[in-house]
């Protein structure tokens, strides 16, 4: 079974710190893939995204998604970090890192985990503009489509 490292955190996420431990001291890891999801602000009007989450279930559901990826792809290690609270434009919202012997498994596991995080992890984003709170970000049907890609039997 793969090694899992899951955390839901209020502090900024450090890519280097989270990935350094993945292959540290190992010589049987051939591939490390990381995905970093950043807070975007294309219009220049966003002050912050406020991420509400379901404490307890957030960690549990991310763990279930990571376990599902580990069962499906030949990966050695999976690390996930997810922010909650206020996140500023340019800051990291989510980090997924996968380590495996061969590259395809690492790529697929990271992509699979992201698709299911989007649709299954209990987080909700509220936009804060300079003028005040402006509403909840709506779920995207493109995320449902992305998840549906993986629906073939394991």
């Amino acid at each position, binding site marked *: 079974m793969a090694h899992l490292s899951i955390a839901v955190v209020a502090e900024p996420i450090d890519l280097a710190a989270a990935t350094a431990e993945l292959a540290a001291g190992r010589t049987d890891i051939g591939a490390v893939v990381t995905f970093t*999801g950043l807070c975007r602000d294309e219009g220049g009007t966003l002050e912050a995204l406020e*991420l*509400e*989450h*379901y404490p*307890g*279930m*957030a960690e*549990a*559901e991310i763990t279930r998604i990571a376990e599902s990826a580990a069962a499906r792809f030949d990966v050695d290690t999976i690390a996930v970090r*997810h922010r909650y609270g206020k996140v500023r434009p340019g800051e990291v*919202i*989510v980090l997924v890192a996968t380590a495996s012997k061969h590259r395809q498994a690492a790529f697929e596991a990271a992509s699979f985990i*992201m698709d299911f*995080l*989007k*649709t*299954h*992890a*209990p*987080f*909700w*984003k*509220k936009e804060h503009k300079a003028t005040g709170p402006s509403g*909840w*970000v*709506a*779920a*995207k049907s493109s995320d449902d489509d992305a998840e549906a890609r993986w629906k073939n039997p394991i």
Partner: protein
Amino acid sequence: MRLLYFAWVRERIGAAEETIEPPATVETVGDLLRWLRTRGDAYEQALTDPTAVRVALDQFHAEHDASIAGVREVALFPPMTGG
């Protein structure tokens, strides 16, 4: 039974959590949503479109036809936008 509300469901109901004792006729998630809507305008407004409401039973995602027998924690929330 402990109820948790998140995001706009929480805002519309005006509470993050409460403890309730639904009548014995409330057997499924769907029953629970219908019963909650009888509890006042805030609930009616939050749950008026049940298809927009996602549910977790004891921290596992569940469908609206799932039984709530023996469940201790029910969470109601909009479609998730994490990641």
